């Protein structure tokens, strides 16, 4: 299998780091894989090109892998995710006007997501009373953690995300412009777009999504399940290369080199500084220069690589909750089987090791009972 040619798609985002490093540090080549990386512009393209076989593997939104497997809104193509590229990494950014309104309506410290959600509910109710247009929030894709994090947070404050506000899909590069020209009052997006809005003085980062859930699968390495079955050796080589890349990325001594590789114009194409700050979890959150640090902001490597079916169950629970999917035990099982810790363990010779400080239910939502995959229909619907 030496020199096996693979086409792999990625979107220029920081959480493509492990894939990009696996190729650019020759970890893939060492495994006998000749990978051509293809930079994509939309998740729809990515999904379609994976589905019809133009791509062998892709950097993919975790919920898209599940939606494709279940045939939600699109073609049913079972997907296998043997490696998790990132946990968390998104943030909620609001306009200065909305930030002031939330602060004004808050009964406490708005860094607490329950306080901010309840304050937002008051802002929303006041707008309705005055006959103003509902607030508009930008998300990146219907099947995205961004969508579910925003909805989960709002609902905890008593907002109906389908009735009380508008959620609209915007390509990430258009988010900042849309906030500037007031097409949206807020958005939930990954790096570097929140920082760009803050740097321009037109946005405040209200929350890291890790404030809402301590751990949520964000992007996965995705392959067609049929491809995984037909090419077990190639898959193993690919996962081994990713294992080495993740170890390389998480090693602080390599941070500058990783930053420089990822910053290249044909990779992520933003400044080394922005990439390093993102990987470090060190973000400017207000136009006055206030910086917030969190090791949970975005986890790449650092125990995040092993796919966790509990995360898949939570995502499916959100699809059910927001009427994207019907509930059935079969679908729940199918969703969980997208995430393959068994493949990960078999290929990398690892075993599950509980990580200090991880929530017992693997999710760590800021509100509601502990998450229980066995009862998604109930536990995905906390009453706040």
């Amino acid at each position, binding site marked *: 299998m030496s020199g096996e040619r693979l086409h792999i798609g990625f979107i220029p985002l920081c959480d493509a780091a492990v894939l990009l490093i696996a190729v650019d540090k020759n970890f893939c080549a060492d495994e006998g894989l000749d990978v051509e990386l293809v930079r994509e512009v*939309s998740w729809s393209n990515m999904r379609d090109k994976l589905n019809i076989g133009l791509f062998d593997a892709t950097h993919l939104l975790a919920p898209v892998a599940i939606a494709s497997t279940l045939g939600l*809104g699109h073609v049913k193509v079972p997907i296998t995710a043997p490696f998790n590229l990132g946990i968390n990494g998104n943030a909620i950014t609001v306009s200065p006007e909305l930030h002031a309104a939330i602060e004004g309506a808050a009964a406490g410290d708005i860094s607490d997501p329950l306080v901010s959600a309840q304050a937002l509910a008051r802002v929303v109710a006041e707008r309705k009373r005055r006959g103003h247009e509902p607030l508009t929030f930008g998300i990146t894709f219907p099947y995205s953690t961004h969508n579910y994090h925003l909805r989960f947070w709002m609902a905890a404050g008593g907002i109906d995300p*389908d009735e009380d506000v508008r959620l609209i899909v915007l390509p990430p590069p258009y988010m900042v412009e849309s906030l500037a020209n007031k097409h949206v009052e807020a958005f939930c997006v990954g790096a570097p777009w929140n920082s760009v809005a803050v740097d321009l003085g037109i946005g405040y980062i209200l929350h890291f999504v890790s404030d809402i859930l301590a751990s949520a699968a964000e992007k996965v390495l995705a392959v067609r399940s049929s491809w995984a079955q037909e090419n077990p050796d190639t898959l193993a080589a690919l996962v081994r290369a990713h294992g080495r890349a993740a170890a390389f990325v998480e090693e602080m001594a390599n941070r500058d080199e990783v930053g420089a590789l990822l910053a290249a114009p044909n990779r992520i194409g933003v400044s080394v500084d922005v990439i390093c700050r993102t990987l470090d979890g060190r973000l400017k959150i207000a136009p006055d220069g206030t910086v917030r640090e969190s090791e949970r902001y975005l986890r790449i490597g650092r125990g995040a690589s092993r796919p966790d079916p509990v995360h898949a169950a939570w995502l499916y629970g959100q699809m059910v909750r927001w009427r994207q999917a019907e509930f059935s035990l079969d679908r729940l099982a199918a969703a969980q089987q997208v995430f393959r810790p068994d493949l990960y363990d078999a290929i990398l010779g690892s075993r599950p090791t509980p990580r200090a400080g991880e929530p017992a239910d693997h999710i760590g939502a800021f509100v509601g009972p502990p998450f229980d995959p066995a009862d998604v229909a109930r536990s995905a619907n906390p009453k706040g």
Partner: protein
Amino acid sequence: MPPVRNRAMDPTPNLNIVIVDENPIRAAILEDGLREAGFTQVVRIGETANLLARIYAIDPDVILIDLENPSRDVLEQMFQVSRIVKRPIAMFVDQSDTASIQASVDAGVSAYIVDGLKKERMKHILDLCISRFNAFSRLQTELERAKSALEERKVIDRAKGILMKAKNLTEEQAYALMRKTAMNENKKIVEIAQSIITAADLLR
């Protein structure tokens, strides 16, 4: 929102087609093709701000979008539970014709159509898109080639002038000398010409 037309009652619906393409030339080529084929209700959207609202206002039967447009993800929102009357489906949902889907992705175009639209009719439109998109990229390649040929011509002319002046040659002699040198050194004339220009610049 305009009233919903009842397609089942209408044997020859005049389809409302929207083209979402930031490249105005390609969009125009596609629109021409559609009009020639008898589709008269064609609207082009180049600017993608407020895309969904504009599409809802037009209420199209078919949406054609280039695959290099990030706004394709915006269209995916149409598949969500919503208050929208019409439910479009993506071409890809019907996988019976894999070859045609592959061809459309290769050409760089994707189509969204309203549920219930006749498949043969859609295939006709998609085939038309594919050939027009491919024609456009051929045109672009030819344009690039013509441009670089022109550049080469300029370089050769300049080198010819340098040789004519330095060695007191006629135009034909200067060209013949460059051609001979290129053949001897197994290089292209333009490469020899470029070396002459570089050398002349250095010696100036």
